[in-house]
């Protein structure tokens, strides 16, 4: 297929969605209020759905064809291509919400660019994902504002979350996604995140230079050990 988006890009997007969705799903039943439990699970369902659509595409395009589950459950940690931010543990609710803001602000321009891509199957997935990402962005934005402009404790927690997640933003912004313009995406991301921080009366720190990426991915290794455990105990099973 001449216009096909390269597999490595599809996997970067799929794996980022899948691991982020996994982290969000860890909150299900443990959220700070029932309404938030339900909202966070909505985001988890959206991004896991996006991951599935992309993995199905990758699986169908491989020769010989494989399956979404083979890709999700039987690739080893070093074969995953997600941005590091997606795999980090949840931390507290401030950190979970901040991650959602940072990732949704990154995904919106990605999906909006891919919506127009000549790879029609990717464009269809992106069109749907763009709508979902805009809703996720609004939800995360509103909570970041409440935390920054809420109580002393919530402010201290969102500031700590910024400190914890900011080092991963350089890699996020540096990630190449074929079919999109990286500098334009970076500018869009900075505008959206800075606007949220401004409304939250928080300082928008400078995104530092890209350090040597953390190649160990210990968090991803632990996440996958859990996610893949049952499937790998029964490699021949159909579920």
């Amino acid at each position, binding site marked *: 297929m001449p216009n096909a988006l390269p597999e490595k890009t599809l996997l970067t997007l799929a794996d980022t969605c899948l691991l982020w969705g996994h982290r969000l799903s860890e909150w299900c039943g443990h959220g700070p209020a029932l309404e938030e439990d339900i909202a966070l699970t909505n985001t988890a369902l959206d991004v896991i759905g996006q991951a599935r659509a992309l993995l199905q595409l990758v699986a169908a395009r491989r020769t010989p064809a494989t399956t979404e589950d083979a890709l999700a459950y039987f690739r080893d940690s070093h074969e995953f291509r997600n941005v590091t931010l997606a795999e980090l543990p949840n931390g507290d609710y401030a950190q979970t919400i901040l991650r959602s803001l940072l990732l949704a602000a990154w995904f919106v321009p990605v999906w909006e660019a891919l919506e127009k891509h000549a790879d029609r199957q990717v464009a269809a997935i992106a069109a749907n994902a763009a709508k979902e990402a805009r809703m996720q962005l609004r939800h995360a934005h509103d909570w970041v504002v409440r935390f920054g402009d809420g109580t002393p404790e*919530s402010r201290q927690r969102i500031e700590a979350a910024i400190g914890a997640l900011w080092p991963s933003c350089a890699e996020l912004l540096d990630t190449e996604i074929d079919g999109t313009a990286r500098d334009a995406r970076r500018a869009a991301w900075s505008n959206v995140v800075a606007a949220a921080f401004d409304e939250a009366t928080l300082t928008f720190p400078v995104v530092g230079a890209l350090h040597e990426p953390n190649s160990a991915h210990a968090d991803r290794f632990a996440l996958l050990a859990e996610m893949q455990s049952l499937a790998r105990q029964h490699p021949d099973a159909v579920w």
Partner: protein
Amino acid sequence: MYTQSLDLPNTDAGNTDSAGLPTEAAFLARIARDEKIEPQDAMPEAYRKSLIRQISQHAHSEVVGMLPEGNWITRAPSLKRKEILLAKVQDEGGHGLYLYSAAETLGASRDDMIDALHSGKAKYSSIFNYPTDSWADIGTIGWLVDGAAIMNQVPLCRCSYGPYARAMIRVCKEESFHQRQGFDIVRALCEGTPAQKQLAQESVNRWWWPTLMMFGPHDSDSEHSGQANAWGIKRISNDDLRQTFVDVTVPQAAFLGLTLPDPLLEWNAERGHYDFGPLDWDEFWRVVRGDGPCNAERLNDRVEAFEKGRWVREAAVAHAARHAARAVSIASEKIAA
């Protein structure tokens, strides 16, 4: 089960009506005519309290019920099963939300209801005090536990209290999806490898008796069933519901090629029903009173989530209050100008 509160001693419902309320006879006559009682209607205080107790404990059951199944979301063995399970557990949270709202129409506050759960004063369905040791338990819970819940809740759709009846109609639609997805998990296991089939059989062995206990004590031992019947809250007796459940489930187990762990289970042509063995009522009361395998863990998880979320809720309230105050001061400046 979800109506467990109707079977247990009622510590706070009084019997006397204050002045101005309808006589018990007039109220019972409305119920006998199958009229729905709505929030603004006069009602005996004992009816109101009994409903708050019933609806709030039903809500708690939905929310605590998220925990045993939530335990397998991160390990679901395929992405499709993971999505379905997430949606299912999310539905249970939604059920909790409608039910807390239905109880609020009777003047209860969500905070007070949650306090009662966390302090151990309010109960929730005992079935959620059993552990989910294997993936097969996710299938068994959907098939048997949600199946029993449907059987118990369908009659509640005709409950005399309007908001509860309407909440139940919505809930029951989703419960039937829950039961189908559970049955489908068990079916896949039974059609799978010998190891998968064994997981299914072991799971059914563990869940069968606790599921039958969900229908509550024998009618002769149920403290509130009589009053709840007269008020049109509960319409079918514990033993009748349990019998219907057994009659419906035995052929399903046979279809799956699973056995049910009861040597006395046998078709009785004369009665037109399955006979089944005696339930372990000692176990039932032990779990109800807090000594089940996971009572402490479940309550602990709920309290922990609530306490960890406290600062989040406080931030939302503080932000909203400050925002409202700003809006008022801008408005008053405009008026002054």
